[in-house]
């Protein structure tokens, strides 16, 4: 291998190291962000079968808001989510107002923790109106149309 080949190798090594540092650093950051924000999705029925460590995780639960269950009290909103024949009492104490779409029978997705008493403490609530006529799927208009209480993130 000639001299030119060696310098070329050296240069490529330099690029390799530079790229490697960037990728490893960002990979590490991604891992941190993952740990901070990972959220498990469970159905209401699954919640009862979870072991204690799984119950402590941050999670999302989806269901339908039970008719007449929305009770607004000072500083918080209580309601019941139903799904697969089970019910889950939820308390939402976030400062953001609940979305306009959050009404009886709407599909809602709550994010937060399961309290020790079995009541779900929600930090965010997303809701989407049940489709009226169109029973078939596909009537949605951009998934973003589901309003939420998600705060600004940037």
């Amino acid at each position, binding site marked *: 291998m000639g001299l030119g080949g060696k310098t*070329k190798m050296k*240069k490529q090594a*330099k*690029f390799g190291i*530079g*790229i490697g540092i*960037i*990728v490893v650093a*960002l990979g590490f*950051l*991604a891992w*941190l*962000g*993952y740990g*901070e*924000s*990972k*959220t*498990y*999705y*469970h159905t209401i029925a699954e919640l009862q079968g979870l072991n204690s460590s799984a119950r402590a995780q941050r999670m*999302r639960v*989806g*269901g339908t808001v039970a008719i007449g269950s929305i009770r*607004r*009290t*000072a500083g918080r909103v209580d309601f019941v989510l139903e799904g697969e024949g089970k019910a889950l009492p939820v308390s939402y104490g976030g*400062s*953001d*107002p*609940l979305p*306009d*779409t959050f*009404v009886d029978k709407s*599909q809602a*997705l709550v994010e937060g923790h399961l309290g020790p008493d079995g009541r779900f403490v929600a930090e965010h609530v*997303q809701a*989407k*109106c049940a*489709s*009226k*006529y*169109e029973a078939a*799927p*596909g*009537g*949605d*208009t*951009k*998934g*973003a*149309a*589901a*309003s*939420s209480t*998600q*705060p*600004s*993130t*940037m």
Partner: protein
Amino acid sequence: MDVFGSFALLLAFVCAVYALVGGIAAIVTRHPLLVKSARQAGMATCGLIFLATFCLEYLFFTDNFSIAYVASHSNRDLSAFYKIAALWSGMEGSLLFWSFLLAVYVLSVLITYRNKNGELMPYVGVVMAGVQLFFLTLSNFVESPFKALAAAGPDGVMSFVTRPDGNGLNALLQYPEMVIHPPNLYSGYTGFTIPFAFALGALLARYPGEKWIHLTRKWTMIAWMFQSCGILLGAHWAYAVLGWGGYWGWDPVENASLLPWLTGTAFLHSVMMQEKRGMMKVWNVWLVFTTFLLCIMGTFLTRSGVVSSVHAFAQSNIGPWFVGFMGITLAVCLGAYLKNSDYLKSENHLDSLISRESSFLFNNLLFLVACLAVLSGTLFPVFSEWFSGNRISVGAPYFNIVNIPVGLLILFLTGVGPLLAWRKTSTESLKRNFGWPLLIGVVVGAVAFALGFRAFFSTVCLFLCVFVASTILLEFYRGAKVIRARSGASYPACAIDLTMRNTRRYGGYIIHMGMVFVFLGLAGAAFNRDVQKSMRVGDTMQIGRYTLMLQGADSKPEQNYTAQRMLVEALSDNKPVMMLFPEKRRFAGNNQENGTMVAIYSTWKEDLYVVFAGIDPETREPVIHAFLNPLVKWIWFGGVVVVFGTIVALLPNRRSVLVLAPAQQPAGAQPLPHAVTSSVAFREGHD
């Protein structure tokens, strides 16, 4: 009209099949008549798609509620403006609209190049017909927009029905941005089909040189411009309508629009490496393939609800079709690449870490990392369920922690990259180009720090914004000075003259400047504040330097909804600034849908953003939620600058002083004598 429309769609499908099969036959036999007929079949496909789209709009405008799609997305009270928008408010119409926009591009390409590039165009036509065929298959056989409503009568026999009125358009979509945002975004998604078709066509045809890049540059930029516009309009819609005080929430649908933008931006930069130095050919081809696949995936994520399904929302049956199409596309791309990879051999190698080449390399690396981070985060629920059985989603912290540093590094390269020389940059040129900008940036950063800006990323971002803006302004100043020395005109006139002589280079700088403004606006988010209070008439609340006083409430009936408005007066230092009218809208019809209209008092310094959050159930008093969001206006302004810069870059150069080989450097004409051909390429500058 519905029969006419569905028949037009079916004929379009037949023509697309002919354009594809006949096109392949034309490539194999090289028979000129076959080439011509395949091209004309392609044009006919486009015409028939236009016809079908107009039929659907006609059904909307004639309130034909016997058609399922019209009945579920429109009603009699809906204004004409929104009847146009109703076309893309649901699945079936969106798919047709995709075909419509694609047909606009395809027809333009077929007409523009009908007598040119005879070796390449049959391949391009086949690829475009293939993509059209996929969407026409969906529109014809899976999600037809012309389905008639039918119901079972008392005797159990199905018969057609007409409803007296439709469901109306989704309340969230009844805003002007929602009328222009989807067409922009879809124009972006569909537009990337053109560079994809040329790249794949050139690879299949082993078409010599970099001609396909020159041919597609303008198409790519147009698609990119629409995509950028669409993303920002979507963000603005989320900001002005959803009422949560932010504009970007890393929602799967938002991410879906960002992904092809990231790879598309990387592609627009890395093709310069191929044009000037004959490098990164494999990379470029794969970037454009990836961009196209991400566009299809974006449409898929938006329309199929595969990720939303994790949120227990609507699912759809078109998922397997999209996955199948992406699989076939990937297989074709991979096959073409493996067969003809020797054609993509690089002509040069990297020379130095501090060179234009390496800045492009890192630029691409960062865009790709950002894309991977966003993609993995978006699809994490799907993959985690496959691998571990647990559906795990990641939230905003994950996206932010990776993308903020990546964004800042890209911003840094925006300032540095264009001024580095090809191959190797001298220390002296580094000092000359970056001395002053660095100094100004550090001074501004230090002043900001002294004034109490302590948010780390925002301060870094501010420093970089000033630094990059200075390098760009310095470039305009230097170029204008040279022209001024000869012509004696004023500096602004010289700067305009300079821009018009090399639109690609200076248009690029204007785009970069627009991105600087966008970043400046994003940096403001670290200082957002909000207050929420339940108020009686006459009550006040304080946010920043503003005092908000509730003056009253009223109710305003409109054509399609009733608005419940709060009259909030904003005062600054006890002087009235503006009356704000945040409102809740209750839409007509039996849907009982609600909408929010945010009132925003926007200045260059900050946005005062006031939401009527609802009625407190305890006290029966209205709840006002006020946000103070600094610098947001710069984001929208930056978007306007980006669009303006793209248009400038699309203009032809005013005059070319040097005669260059047009096939190699159509846009490289420079007024100064140091413009040399690509084989030597020692010159600095961005074009």
